[in-house]
């Protein structure tokens, strides 16, 4: 079997990135507002999914707290970019506390701070709960995410409580979201294919053996959790500036979002970064497409009124079917690589000749 050389790999990847850049430029200019918003959302979902797969796939610990970190990132960044007059207007039940009510900064620093604060929360949540394993860990993280959401819902002087934040400047463009996605993939990919990534994959397979090989299991898991939290925060920040309105309902930045992202990574294949991106693409497009089933329709003469939540029903069914019959998802644990393409297309061509 011929191996694709490192140089070739690099060249092809560069071409792909630049090519995607041109495609995005084209999409941005000529696909219209609706589709360019969807393409932006795809990248945001992909950031969330890639960061989630680092914990749930690569490290093999089942966390259900991702939406908590996304919410932290979203709120932090939104509070930092909201115009001061907008803050004064929104916080009419209780005014915003001091340093936040007089700060307004650019999108990039706000996003990064959002990521850092989310990473900090990931540390605080991960430190105690990583002492648990398996289902207990999942339940603990789920509870922590819910705690974060409820704290947001009730601290009126910081987050405006259940009213949420309105009028967030819509900074998130195709370029911001896809740029951050590139950063996320490069960093998490680089981590996955480093010695640390090997250690993570090893401990996901067998904690006891990994410990005997000299891996500090707790610290490595915590590290993955914090890195994942950081990018979840970035994803949240982008999401907030894409939605322009955020609130702490379970269906917006709560447990539903965790399940959306879970569907993406399971669909794409747990532990695969490229799988997570593919899952995000499928999910974002399917979610748009499934809007049809929520609108009133006329099925063979049978009049069906619009049923809100119908798309979720379909998603849930699809999710169950995936879990039952197609557990490895699109990519399994593999990554899309040029080698894979080579083996798939060219080798067959070579065999024919």
């Amino acid at each position, binding site marked *: 079997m011929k191996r694709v050389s490192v140089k070739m790999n690099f060249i092809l990847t560069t071409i792909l990135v630049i090519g995607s850049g041109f495609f995005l430029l084209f999409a941005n200019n000529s696909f219209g507002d609706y589709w360019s918003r969807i393409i932006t959302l795809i990248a945001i979902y992909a950031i969330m999914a890639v960061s989630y797969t680092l914990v749930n796939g690569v490290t093999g610990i089942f966390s259900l707290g991702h939406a908590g970190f996304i919410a932290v990132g979203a709120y932090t960044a939104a509070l930092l970019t909201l115009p001061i007059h907008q803050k004064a207007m929104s916080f009419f039940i209780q005014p915003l506390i001091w340093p936040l009510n007089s700060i307004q900064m650019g999108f990039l620093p706000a996003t990064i701070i959002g990521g850092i604060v989310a990473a900090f929360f990931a540390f605080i949540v991960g430190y105690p709960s990583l002492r648990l394993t398996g289902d207990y860990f999942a339940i603990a993280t789920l509870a922590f995410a819910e705690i974060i959401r409820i704290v947001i819902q009730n601290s009126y002087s910081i987050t405006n409580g259940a009213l949420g934040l309105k009028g967030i400047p819509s900074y998130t463009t195709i370029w911001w979201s896809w740029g951050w996605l590139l950063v996320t993939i490069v960093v998490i990919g680089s981590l996955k294919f480093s*010695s640390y990534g090997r250690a993570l994959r090893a401990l996901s*397979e067998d904690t006891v053996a990994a410990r*005997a*090989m*000299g891996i500090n299991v707790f610290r490595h898991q915590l590290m993955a959790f914090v890195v994942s939290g950081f990018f979840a925060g970035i994803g949240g920040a982008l999401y907030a500036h894409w939605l322009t309105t955020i609130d702490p309902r379970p269906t917006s930045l709560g447990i539903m979002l965790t399940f959306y992202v879970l569907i993406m990574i399971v669909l794409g294949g747990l532990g695969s970064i490229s799988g997570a991106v593919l899952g995000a693409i499928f999910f974002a497009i399917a979610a748009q497409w499934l809007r049809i089933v929520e609108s009133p329709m006329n099925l063979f003469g049978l009049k069906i009124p619009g049923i809100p939540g119908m798309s979720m029903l379909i998603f849930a069914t699809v999710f169950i079917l995936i879990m039952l019959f197609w557990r490895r998802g699109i990519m399994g644990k593999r990554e899309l690589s040029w080698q894979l393409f080579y083996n798939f297309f060219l080798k067959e061509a070579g065999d024919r000749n």
Partner: protein
Amino acid sequence: MIEISKKKSVLKLENLTIKFGGLTAVDSFNGYLNEGELVGLIGPNGAGKTTIFNMITGIYKPTFGNVIFNNIDITGMKPHVITHLGVARTFQNIRLFSEMTVLENVLVGEHSWLTNFAAQKVLYKHNPKVYRRPKWKPWFWSAVLKTPDYLKMEREMRDHALELLKAVDLERYANLKASALPYGPQRKLEIARALATKPMLLLLDEPAAGMNPQETQELLEFIENIRKRFSLTILLIEHDMKFVMGICERIYVLDYGKIIAHGLPKEIQNNKKVIEAYLGDEVYV
């Protein structure tokens, strides 16, 4: 009798005792291993052999007693620190990272090169004259950012891993999934993976389990081979008596958590207590 050698002591177990609730799994075990020795630990099922391994490697904390490795008291240290200090082990039921390639399995063992700061600190504290003050390096960031420092380290790790695979004759399997290997090579790979952590003391838990006589013979030669090549001290648990008698220089026999015999293989073979433990008391009808 056993002559008292002047060799350096690698491992000393002093009054090692562990209780699980009311059950005393290991009862004041006293033992030692000198540099370069190959010692067997035998006993009927449930005698507490693997429990001793787990105490040495830090998975269990002994209720009483001490584990002295290289004159350092390692009792109660974290497993990864103990591994970094130079104790490696294999498992009774093979525990390879089966989804990873053979090479990656070995590379996982070498991950300790980047993360052995805590162990370095222990060594420095133990003897500041011999060991250098450890310097902490942000290897994690170097690994993510792929700094030249890290890339050099990664290359060294890869070269060393390939060399190790060559030494155990698994080189041709390097890019195969570990689960795709036949049983014998899997055992070998587990040992190679343990060797990647650069151990002084190797603990082998039933290395010959499930092997046919020919494979066992090969394994025997293999262990002799790596022992010389990597100047290891080895403690092994085994049920295959032919194997144990053929390879071990000294043997501890354990029954119900207590040492019932200790000596050269020949002495053990004829020890009445040992025969009783394995075959049971004489029964008069």
